[in-house]
């Protein structure tokens, strides 16, 4: 026992160390503090003899926080931001990106042949650029102070005006040495009248200047060539054109937007127009999926529960087999089977039906696929539940003169429901958000010709996916807001259902 404890805590310490190193490297002190606190807590609980219940609760609680609470908290907090492509980082990062992306080669400047070197020791000396101008065949040394001529005879070059291979006062760096000094090289540039000389790879350097630069005074970005000005808008997280003639700069930053994302759900015209219809189908889809898979699973389970039936094991294995196949692949196979011209189903039935082309047939096809993919699971759990119902109850009913169906309806089925109701509710919650069932089959279609954004078999989740990720990049803030709304719907339905289940248990 002691050995288990020692090994376990040793392992924990190793994991904590493993987690702490990158946190230290990125100066993430809050993260480090949390790691330390959790590790210390674990050591205290498992080494002290007193808090016994905590010894059992701690692992579960930690996993609950990490895998359940944190994602929910993060999703909810994201819903109140504009987090999306183009608005991912901080304002400083956006400014760096804007300035960096606008560095252009100074017109008519030369591209030098570069040799990276240091003034003094390779590991500690100041970085210098040994530059050769291939056109004029002049050679220079570039330092943080500027450009200077290299004296004739003080250096060696591959050819006149070619790459400098050695210089008297400087140490030429090897590639591994360059890599070791990478941060210094990235930060280094040689100032010139028009901009600065930056390195580009191992053997080229160019004179560049940022076209767009940030001015803290006006909190704005100015383009040197065109004179356009973009002012920072901290409520939107974008640099907005001052005179309104230009588009916002593409690189923005993440800001809180309050309830804007939620407001968008309720004020957007296309969303408002199709929301109710989608919600209705979403409920119908989830309820119907649970109902038909449960019904078929129940029938098959009862049939295969009869001891008079032969070869039950084989049937059971065959039925469970599809459940073992990856659902995603099965959806794609079924989609192809429903293909109008090449699909198995039309060929077998000698029909010419475009299954995903009309609302009714598309819904039918989807539910059929759901039935095939889902009844095995229901069969599995119902078989288990049936076998746990004591057979003497039904036998006693038979002795009292009850017909088999009456006995099933009044005894077996209610007992089954008590056991399975929570499963049915979770199955409903799962299917309410069954993204792949729609996206891999009908993709939400058919779509009315006049509205490509809301299809007749769209679920809230597929519809949201299209809205949040179909624009100019991914819009996580908006997606999170809709996720929160869907969560509220599913939670409300589940809570009410679970209450009902408890009532069911009390009756029995």
């Amino acid at each position, binding site marked *: 026992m002691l050995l288990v404890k020692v090994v376990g805590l040793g392992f924990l310490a190793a994991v904590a160390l493993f987690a702490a190193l990158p946190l230290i490297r990125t*100066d993430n002190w809050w993260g480090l503090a949390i790691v330390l606190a959790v590790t210390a807590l674990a050591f205290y609980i498992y080494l002290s003899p007193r808090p016994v219940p905590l010894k059992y609760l701690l692992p579960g609680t930690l996993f609950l926080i990490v895998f359940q609470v944190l994602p929910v908290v993060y999703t909810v907090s994201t819903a109140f931001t504009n987090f999306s492509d183009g608005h991912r980082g901080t304002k400083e990062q956006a400014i760096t990106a804007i300035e960096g992306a606008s560095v252009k080669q100074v017109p008519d400047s030369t591209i030098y042949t570069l040799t990276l070197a240091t003034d003094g020791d390779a590991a500690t000396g100041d970085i210098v650029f040994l530059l050769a101008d291939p056109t004029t065949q002049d050679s220079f040394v570039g330092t943080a102070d500027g450009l200077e001529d290299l004296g004739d005879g003080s250096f060696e070059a591959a050819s006149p005006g070619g790459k400098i291979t050695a210089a008297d006062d400087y140490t030429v760096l090897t590639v591994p040495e360059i890599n070791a000094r990478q941060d210094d090289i990235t930060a280094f540039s040689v100032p010139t009248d028009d901009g600065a000389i930056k390195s580009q790879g191992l053997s080229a350097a160019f004179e560049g200047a940022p076209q767009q630069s940030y001015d803290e005074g006006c909190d704005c970005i100015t383009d040197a060539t065109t004179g356009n000005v973009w002012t920072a808008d901290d409520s939107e997280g974008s640099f907005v054109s001052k005179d309104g003639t230009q588009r916002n700069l593409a690189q923005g930053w993440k800001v809180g937007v309050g309830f804007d994302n939620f407001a968008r759900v309720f004020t957007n015209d296309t969303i408002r127009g199709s929301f109710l219809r989608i919600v209705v189908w979403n409920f119908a889809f989830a309820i119907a999926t649970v109902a038909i898979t449960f019904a078929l699973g129940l029938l098959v389970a009862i049939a295969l529960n009869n001891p008079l039936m032969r070869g039950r094991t084989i049937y059971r294995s065959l039925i469970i087999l599809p459940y073992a196949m990856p659902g995603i692949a099965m959806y794609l196979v079924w989609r192809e089977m429903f293909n109008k011209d090449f699909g198995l189903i039309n060929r077998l039935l000698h029909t010419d039906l475009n299954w995903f082309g009309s609302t009714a047939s598309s819904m039918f096809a989807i539910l059929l696929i759901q039935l095939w993919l889902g009844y095995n699971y229901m069969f599995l759990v119902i078989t288990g539940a049936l076998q746990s119902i004591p057979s003497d109850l039904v036998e006693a009913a038979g002795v009292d003169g009850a017909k088999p169906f009456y006995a099933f309806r009044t005894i077996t089925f209610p007992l089954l429901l008590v056991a399975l109701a929570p499963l049915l509710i979770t199955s409903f919650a799962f299917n309410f958000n069954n993204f792949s069932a729609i996206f891999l089959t009908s993709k939400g279609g058919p779509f009315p010709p006049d509205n490509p954004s809301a299809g007749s078999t769209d679920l809230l989740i597929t519809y949201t996916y299209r809205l949040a990720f*179909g624009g100019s990049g991914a819009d996580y803030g908006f997606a999170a807001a809709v996720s929160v709304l869907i969560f509220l719907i599913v939670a409300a339905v589940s809570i009410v259902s679970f209450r009902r289940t408890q009532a069911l248990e009390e009756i029995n």
Partner: protein
Amino acid sequence: MRTRARTFRAAGAVLAASLVLAACGGGSDDDTSSSGDGGDTPSASGGDLLIWVGDGPGGDATTEIGKAFGEENGVNVKVEVLPGAELQANFVTAAQAGDPPDVVMGAHDWIGNLVQNGTIDPIQIPETVSSTIQPLAMEAVTFDGQTYGMPYTMNNIVLIRNTDLAPDAPATVEDMVAAGKKAVQSGKAEAPLAWPVSDTGNPYFINPLYTSGGGYMFGQGADGSFDPSDLGVGTPGSVTAYEKISALGEKGEGVLKRSVNTDNAIALFTDGKTPFLVEGPWQLTTIDDSKINYEVSPVPGFAGLKPASPFITVDAAYVASGGKNKTLAQEFVTNYWSRADIGAQLFEATKNVPANKDTLAQIEGDNPAVAAVSKAGAENGQIMPSIPQMAAVWDPLGKAEAAVIGGADPKSTIDSAAKAIQAAMKE
């Protein structure tokens, strides 16, 4: 475009994964600003050039090329081959978390999104290098007047013709439909042609017909950059184009069908059931295996209308803004990855059209089909727009295409698509 198709297919996974990833990255969000001042110790990853490449035929070749580069320079090069459909999202997430690779390989239409997220650096390609790359490929990696990547392969769709069923390359769509129907009537084929449409449409594949009829995606400025305020969908030209497409659809000639998609079109052709297939060079290996006699020619346009332009997509190598070994990354991307012999090595693996002119000249003789793809692209090809707004176009326009081919009214359908695109771009 394969990547696009896969993107949609794996979309569910991406959605889940990106939310989870975002959640994982969340803990340190507040701290990234304070760590931006370069607290990283250079030794932590010094000496390792990290390259991310999508899985696919080029992945293994990249691993070898990376190894050779490392040996040449005395450094370690690590190439990670990742799922292509999620590569862009994963790269942006990693960059945001402050831990991106040094180099990433990806399609040129990623550039808009990568730039708006501040994840890649412009690179200065010397004239001596850029002059060895095909001009259209260089144009593809140019965004807002800056060059962002080093192109290595380029692709465009072409017409692949079963020469036993249709001996001559059709000059117009009308010729092609007539030849296709003749092959069906003679009992030698089952379908006049296989042109991927699918239930939700595929604007990439229909672009030759769309442009031939007078449509365009986004207007281009004098310097070739795309103008998001000039949307081509909804213009009279786009409506004319879709009227012509509608005539080929299920209620018209019946040669364009929603039941044909990228999954079954290739099978139709390799089974010898159709004389014409519209596909990209990435299918050539499969077709070679099927022993069908085929030839490659440009996708034809409508008689008497504009030329049919297939989209040109380019794969390129990018230097990550937040990479830890920038000098080596720049060196690898600008000077090594662009070499003709590297291009040849990649060609052997991918069979995509090389972006390097010398490589192309080298392989043309032995690969007439690839040469024909390249020629078709160079003649009428059009760079697929790389502005982020393009993401708003694909879905609505595709659905409009499917609806029109299914028999819906072209004008009102395209107008609705234009409205949906405008709405999506605004948000």
